[in-house]
């Protein structure tokens, strides 16, 4: 090797400048010094390949599995008795099922944002968290997909949503935002799964080569597709990965845009607003980063990954939380402006009802969680403290659920005529579904943490200083 560096490459800068850069402007590293290709590989793959599963994992997994049990019982009840077991009724036809759907799908968006948009923006710090966040996307979309599928009432006919020549001579009505949603969410789930799997292939090959048990080796080998790290393969691989990132970026924006169309295209005050798409997309990123923080703070502690998921990652996520939180708060304020400026009595009534009506507690809590709590992120002390980041993230998780509650039932429950006013309360089965879907999410996440590398090993190798190469004719860095 031409030059041997001992310090991380991103800290390299001309010596003359070194004295003038105040320490606070020098970023903390994305990988702690002292790692090489072998230590990175061994550390991350050993989490997966160790023979003894830690007791804490079993505890967490069983707890999550309990949630899956609740979900199974709830689904059985729903299919047996129909959607009447939920609290939905006239005038509130969309309740917690749709709230939870939007909540989960929004959470999923951070994964794609981290893996695709930050890749295109060359934010190299994304490397430690992208795999984890992509897995979170997949499992969140899986949880989200349950709700609309079951909300159709007769889920065994859900395949009618897809266009295919049939003996009934029926075709879907493609002018409906609900059909757009079917295509958006199923495309999103498919592309996210492909993106995630493509990212996993080289790491599966690493696990195949590291595994000592023959069957474990064969299992990883089958999914690694015979990957051997050829330069030609890497070339096409990186090309494909970049193209996928480029395709996923507009996709992720379109998905939540279309989810917001489910509301914005309707005539209902509180839903019928042109600024819903950007408002929803910002909210999705906000919710998603909060969930990444919620999951990665305990995970990095439990699996001793502080060297790879450093304070820099947490701080950057805190900054994203602040920025998107401000956009969301701006949207809440603009809702008032649009409503009042419209002069429409129904719009004005909707706003008044939101702030002073029966669901006012939710609205106040929404402002506290999404408007005020993220303001903590202005302070570096909070941004660099896992505890305060976790607290803020939990506020946002709750706040984003409340936001959808305020948008959906709180807009529906006061219809245009007082004779068709009503109230919505989640029933036991509404809540059991919600808890069940959280259980499903965590059960899948625990399986992922046990059987697949939660940090992209091959991308972490490129973060190691020795990975820097000099090309012919180049005069050093």
């Amino acid at each position, binding site marked *: 090797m031409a030059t041997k560096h001992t310090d991380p490459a991103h800290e390299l800068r001309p010596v003359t400048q070194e004295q003038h850069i105040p320490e606070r402007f020098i970023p903390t590293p994305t990988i702690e010094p002292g790692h090489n290709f072998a230590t990175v590989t061994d550390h991350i793959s050993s989490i997966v390949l160790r023979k003894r599963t830690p007791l804490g994992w079993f505890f967490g997994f069983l707890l999550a599995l309990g949630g899956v049990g609740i979900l199974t019982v709830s689904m059985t009840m729903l299919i047996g008795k129909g959607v009447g077991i939920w609290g939905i009724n006239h005038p509130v036809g969309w309740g917690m099922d749709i709230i939870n759907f939007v909540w989960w799908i929004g959470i999923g968006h951070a994964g794609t944002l981290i893996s695709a948009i930050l890749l295109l923006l060359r934010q190299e710090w994304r490397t430690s968290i992208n795999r984890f966040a992509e897995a979170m996307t997949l499992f969140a979309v899986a949880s989200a997909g349950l709700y609309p599928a079951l909300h159709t009432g007769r889920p065994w006919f859900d395949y009618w949503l897809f266009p295919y020549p049939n003996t009934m001579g029926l075709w879907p009505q493609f002018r409906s935002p609900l059909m757009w949603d079917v295509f958006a969410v199923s*495309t999103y789930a498919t592309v996210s799964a492909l993106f995630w799997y493509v990212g996993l292939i080289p790491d599966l090959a690493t696990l195949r080569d590291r595994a000592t048990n023959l069957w474990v080796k064969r299992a990883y080998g089958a999914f690694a597709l015979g990957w051997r*790290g050829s330069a030609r393969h890497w070339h096409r691989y990186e090309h494909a990965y970049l193209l996928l990132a480029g395709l996923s970026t507009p996709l992720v924006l379109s998905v939540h845009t279309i989810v917001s169309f489910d509301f914005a295209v309707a005539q209902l005050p509180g839903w019928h607003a042109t600024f819903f798409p950007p408002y929803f997309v910002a909210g999705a990123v906000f919710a998603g980063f909060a969930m990444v923080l919620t999951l990665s703070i305990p995970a990095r502690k439990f699996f001793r990954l502080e060297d790879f998921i450093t304070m820099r990652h947490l701080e950057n996520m805190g900054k994203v939380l602040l920025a998107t939180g401000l956009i969301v708060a701006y949207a809440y304020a603009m809702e008032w402006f649009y409503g009042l400026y419209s002069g429409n009595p129904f719009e004005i009534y909707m706003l008044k009802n939101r702030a002073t009506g029966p669901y006012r507690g939710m609205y106040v809590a929404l402002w506290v969680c999404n408007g005020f709590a993220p303001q903590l992120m202005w302070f570096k002390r909070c941004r660099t403290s896992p505890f305060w980041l976790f607290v803020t993230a939990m506020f946002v998780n709750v706040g984003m659920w409340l936001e959808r509650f305020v948008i959906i039932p709180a807009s529906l429950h006061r219809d245009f005529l007082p004779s068709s006013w009503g109230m919505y309360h989640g029933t036991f089965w509404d809540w059991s579904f919600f808890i069940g879907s959280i259980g499903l999410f965590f059960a899948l996440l625990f399986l992922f943490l046990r059987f697949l590398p939660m940090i992209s090993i091959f991308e972490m190798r490129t973060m190691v200083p020795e990975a820097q190469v000099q090309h012919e004719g180049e005069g050093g860095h």
Partner: protein
Amino acid sequence: MAIGRIRQGLYGVIAEFSDPQTLLDAANKTREAGYTSTDAFSPFPIHGLAEAIGFHKSRLSIIVLTMGILGGIGGFVMCWYANVIAYPLNIGGKPWNSWPAWIPITFECTILLAAFGAVFGMLALNGLPMPYHPVFNVRRFDQASRDKFFLVIHARDPKFNLDDARSFLQSLGPREVTDVPW
């Protein structure tokens, strides 16, 4: 590698290196020495390595573009056929061919097929899945997915001569040079 045909003899000669810089330099020297059928293996993508072994153009972009266009046209035609020809419904007095309402689905279909093109096109061009490959016969090749770097000169290279290839690779500063059987 036709199925049912047993290949015998030598696949090539492989050299193992300990760091990416040596591999890249070695790959460049091998190309400059006139070898045209070579391959390099590394645990992570190294920029310039594909070019160093004489690989330049990937046909992936055109595959993705074609698939994207097909997806876009297909998505739109699907909506149009269903709502204009097969099952026309009057929705709010909109014209039959109310195309703006079909843009979201057209867009999603474009992305979906382009993504299929990117993933399956990449795998197909790379010839994956390929469970068996001669380089897996090399004893230390499992280190290629950890921290070691390999360069192989194929026996089918017109300039290939076993002794020359061995001594040439030996001159590039490898950790070890071994023969790769089929």
